[in-house]
């Protein structure tokens, strides 16, 4: 009886023989790894394996203090507080071109004719951005070029 390695193999036939030749494997060179304690921004901790020799890693920006991942959190809402009316005065003088991008979106929603009803609140964030961009385009308020891609739903304000 021929050993399995010398048995003739038929390439046309569906049955295939196992090939069990011994082959040389190089010894893997794996870097040295440590256990590290990761502390997230809300104080929660977990350990993981890493090549970094630091015992503790303190994360300052992660899912725990991101508005997208904590929609119910009041602390992370981006609400502008215009206590002394200085922002309003600035805008009266210099326009809205210097506003942060998030503020621009909020203002477009305020000026837009459509009211945000229950159904719209359930839409995803990207749909909302796309919707506002298209609405602004229609009413001719958005100056500058607007891409067709959904990402740039933010109007470009007064800047050229």
């Amino acid at each position, binding site marked *: 009886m021929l050993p399995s390695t010398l048995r003739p193999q038929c390439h046309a036939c569906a049955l295939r023989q196992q090939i069990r030749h011994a082959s040389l494997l190089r010894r893997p*060179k*794996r*870097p*040295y*790894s*440590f*256990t*590290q*304690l990761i*502390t997230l921004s809300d*104080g*929660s*901790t*977990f*350990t993981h394996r890493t090549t*970094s*020799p630091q*015992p*503790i890693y303190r994360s300052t920006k992660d899912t725990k203090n991101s508005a997208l991942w904590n*929609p*119910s*959190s009041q602390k992370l809402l981006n609400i502008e507080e215009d206590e002394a009316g200085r922002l309003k005065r600035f805008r009266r003088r210099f326009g809205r071109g210097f506003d942060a991008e998030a503020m621009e979106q909020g203002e477009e929603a305020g000026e837009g004719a459509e009211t945000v009803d229950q159904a719209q609140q359930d839409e995803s964030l990207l749909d909302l951005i796309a919707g506002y961009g298209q609405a602004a385009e229609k009413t001719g308020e958005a100056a500058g070029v607007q891409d067709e891609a959904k990402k740039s739903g933010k109007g470009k304000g007064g800047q050229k």
Partner: protein
Amino acid sequence: MNAAPQSARRIASANNAFFVDTVCFSCRNRLSQQSRRHAATAAAVSDPPPATSPQASSRAAAPIIAKGPRKAYRLMAAPVLSRPPLLTRDLNSFEKAFYLYQKRLNERLAMPFSRYFYYNKGTPADPEWKRKLQARKTPSRDIGIYDAYGNEGWNDEVLVGDRTGERESVVEALIRDAEGKSIVEESEKDQGAVTAGDAQLGEGQRRETTKIEVERPSSRETEADRSGDVKSLNRKLDRTLYLLVKNHEGRWRFPEDRVYGRENLHQAAERILIQSCGINMNTWLVGNHPIGHHAHHYPSQKPIVSKISANALVGTSKESEKEEFGEKLFFMKARIMAGQPDLGSNAYGLQEWAWLAKEEVDGRVGRSYWASVKNMLVER
């Protein structure tokens, strides 16, 4: 169409494994009765072919007409609101021993730590590292004192009762290292021997200038665990908690109600959640399919004529009267992200609510209800 009855009868032959697995008991009975009936009529008309041959019986048979349910049941939905676990589970002793052994084994299998890549010569971090390394003989902090390349490298197993592999001691060792202390408390005598380098230049000596205090992580057992507060979502952080409510009869069940008008189970479950627990909960109803069901037949086979009033929140519901032989309740899976139930203005007369783990649910609900519910609840 002859294809449907043909395939149905092929499936209906009792020795078909596919039939037994995918068709429910009552439908199987109905189909086999019908096929037997049609085979019998075919036999009466012409010379009887064997009953098991589908082709022969299909030629003479009438198409199978699906009949509706003969008895009406009250259709109900119940959201199973759950808070998933916030912490990973504790390791058992085998896992701890295994992981400790694997980490010590890794010392000998991985490349040695390239310390000058991270801690340059002449920087203050360098003697710090050297001092800490002297104490524990290995760059790792979670395997205790173990020198893989020394004379005692063979001695990689720890004694029974050793706390080196425990999660708490690993975290404690990491924090002590961050504070600049050695991972284990050393006696005063050893500390003298541990210092390395030139004593005159102050190398290797630890000067007590500022004490770094790193805050320890909070315990996995919270205040709510200790006090047994079932209304808190902070209890049993490594388990799934389910919302149970006590209805007007005093029974503990998931919040439930009838399905009105043309709403589907998903919509019904959302409405029930709001009507029973208020709107101050950030919840998510997962999917349109139920995760379980509970059927209750009214005793002594007598139907109850129930007057169904229109529900204000369901636009398509109408007032009607229906004779019902029992209740069929479907459970819908939901998750809570934030908020708490508020039974202040609930429409069902609910008295109390609680967040309970699976075995605690067992303790509170009735036996037949538990039999329907237990397989859809998660152990952890």
